């Protein structure tokens, strides 16, 4: 900032004359006209819904803001929308038209409805959905035992979880299939499948069982919930 000068030079804004230093009141003139309510105005205001005004009168405004939102934030809403899409497509019989892996990785460009996003079919490459539905509980338990035996030490803080929940958390933490935050688990599985990364079919079986069992919460990664909570309980 340039240094302040002591002398006051000519100022850009001219000062008011002293006679105009006081504000004045006036009771005539256009600015002070008091209009009487005319018939047209009353007719307009008559259209207002009296119930709305009642609502305003009777609304109780909380004095403190609530920290927990009733509506989910955008990320949660996005995952719920993805889950609804998956549920909608899973209910339909898997269509014969499907996107081939080689179309994603190379070769002919896929014929797509909307081009950059989405595509034909429900995102399945072959008959994984049918195969996943054939996977039994014992197979899933065997898969989980194999996973557990890979580690020397047992997993801690997982005593309360069912095998399904443990399988899904392991699915989240497998980084080779992509980031798990901001995407529904089933959609992540389909994406990994389309990219040719061969995700395990047992995880798909668990996801389909959870979805058929009417548990949409299982589609959201646990770390996603942890990362998006606004307040940390201490």
């Amino acid at each position, binding site marked *: 900032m340039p240094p302040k000068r002591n002398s006051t030079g000519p100022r850009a804004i001219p000062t008011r004359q002293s006679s105009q230093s006081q504000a004045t009141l006036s009771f005539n003139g256009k600015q002070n006209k008091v209009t009487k309510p005319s018939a047209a105005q009353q007719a307009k205001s008559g259209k207002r819904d009296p119930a709305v005004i009642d609502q305003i009168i009777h609304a109780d405004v909380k004095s403190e803001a609530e920290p927990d939102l009733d509506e989910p934030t*955008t*990320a949660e809403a*996005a995952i719920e*929308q993805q889950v609804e899409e998956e549920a909608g497509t899973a209910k339909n019989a898997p269509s014969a038209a499907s996107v081939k892996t080689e*179309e*994603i*990785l*190379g*070769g*002919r*460009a896929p*014929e*797509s*409805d*909307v*081009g*950059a*996003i*989405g595509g*034909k079919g429900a995102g399945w490459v072959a008959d994984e959905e049918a195969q996943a539905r054939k996977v039994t509980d014992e197979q899933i338990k065997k898969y989980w035992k194999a996973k557990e035996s890979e580690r020397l030490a047992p997993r801690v803080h997982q005593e309360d979880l069912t095998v399904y929940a443990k399988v899904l958390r392991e699915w989240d933490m497998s*980084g*080779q299939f*992509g*980031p798990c*935050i*901001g*995407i529904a688990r089933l959609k992540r599985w389909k*994406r990994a499948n*389309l*990219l*040719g*990364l061969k995700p395990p079919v047992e995880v798909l079986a668990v996801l389909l069982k959870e979805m058929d069992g009417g548990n949409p919460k299982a589609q959201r990664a646990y770390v996603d919930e942890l990362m998006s909570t606004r307040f940390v309980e201490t």
Partner: protein
Amino acid sequence: MNGQDPSTDTSLLETPDMSTPHAVLDRTPSAYTPHPTYRLPPGSARHYQNQYADMYFARLAQLKPATLAIAADAFDTFSIADETARRVDRVLDVRQGELCWVVGTCYMEMPLKPNVLDDIGKEHWIAAPPTRVKYDHPSVALEAGEGAHGAHAGGTGGVGTQIMLEDESGRLRLTGSFLRGCLLVTGAIVAVVGTENKDGDFEVLDLRVPDLPRQPQRWEADDGNTALTGKKPGSKKKRPRAGKVAIVSGLGISGDEGDTLTLDLLLEYLLGESTSPADQEDASTISRLIIAGNSLSHASPIPSRQDVITAATKNAAKASGTRKYGYDSAAYNAAPTDRLDQWLASLLPSMPITLLPGAQDPTSTSLPQQPIHAAMFPHSRNYMAPPTATTKDGDGEEVGWFDSQTNPADFTLDGFRFLGTGGQPVDDVYKYIAGEERLEMMEAMLRWRLSAPTAPDTLPCYPFQDEDQFVIKDCPHVFFVGNQPRFETTLIEGPVGQAVRIIAVPRFKETGEVVVVDMETLVPEVVRFEVFD
């Protein structure tokens, strides 16, 4: 104008011959099919809360198989002092002293890249940071913190530039003098062979890129479509000789009086109204005009960084206290779009046009830029395809005579695959790489198989979640980039016989040049319009 010597071409200055009827020339038809590769779904189906990590992951997953194949060929026999290179799966699996090779995404840490802290800084200071021509400035003086990394300054670039290799496991800093000879930008997928030294950096001995993808045969897309719809393939039927295509970019219509004359000259040339009958016959073989970006100047709805800076400094000088953010609807000037619309509407009855948006056009600023809406063209709208409520499964959208396309654009013209951009990806890659060779950068973009490699790092783009749409899956026959400083062209070759013609299209407003490509030979030539003052 081109070719003919005016002194010998006497027909131009003779009185017209009234007895013989003039032959009416017909324009060569053009077989055109756009591909919806870069179209985004409308409105509510677009989701912007996705993270860009999904996009980088998808890019690596899509390009890893091709890179692995090429690198395996090259590096499996790579040996130094009886030690052969071994492939490691993840970037962090490299071991010190062991010769190994790995595939990952390149990330370049450069001191002058756009930084959100700069944006905060310019709101508090009157002086704006200077515009960056290149992101690494060899003579820039850095703070002590950056200078401490001088030992790791790496191969290319100035002090403070670091090149790293990244995948889902982590990042690995790359060093070595080999990198000085490589073109690298953030987002390119590369395979490197070398060893980890005692500083924890990876010394690179050799580098491979995915190289060009498979190139379809000429007419493959059309034959494929006819096969799908059950008709007999057209390879047996004789296709007429294809004409030429004119590519122009940077018309830069700004509503001033000054920019009308060269535009009208171009219009008359394309319509066959000017010059001699010989030239008019040449012009009648031009079957399509492609406008590659920046038809309007200063029509982008979001003001650029420079505009915001100048507006902020102007406001600070006036000391008015009000900041104008975003779009001031009272200051809208309809003259440029009106002029463009009239110009297009005069040309459209005679010739089909494909319009790509550019950095300064009134459409989205993030890539892929969506087509300029029909509402901007009240007269040319009659030549566009009518809007469809939903796109039907199976049969393609109706393509109008006037096709407003996305940027980047992917279409098939006379059987050849074209890939074109309005210039933003190449201009951004230019900022990363020392040197002025734009053709080399365009070739590198094709060999990396990415039409916008620096998106989303320094180039704003849509957050794709399922797959990276900027990965080039089919090698084009022609790759044109608009809004370049001068006309340049070359032919590059791929490992399995692909051949791509790369064309840098200059800005018409500055140079007055139009590129005309012969579709049978794919050789470009330049037509220049000049006005002598």
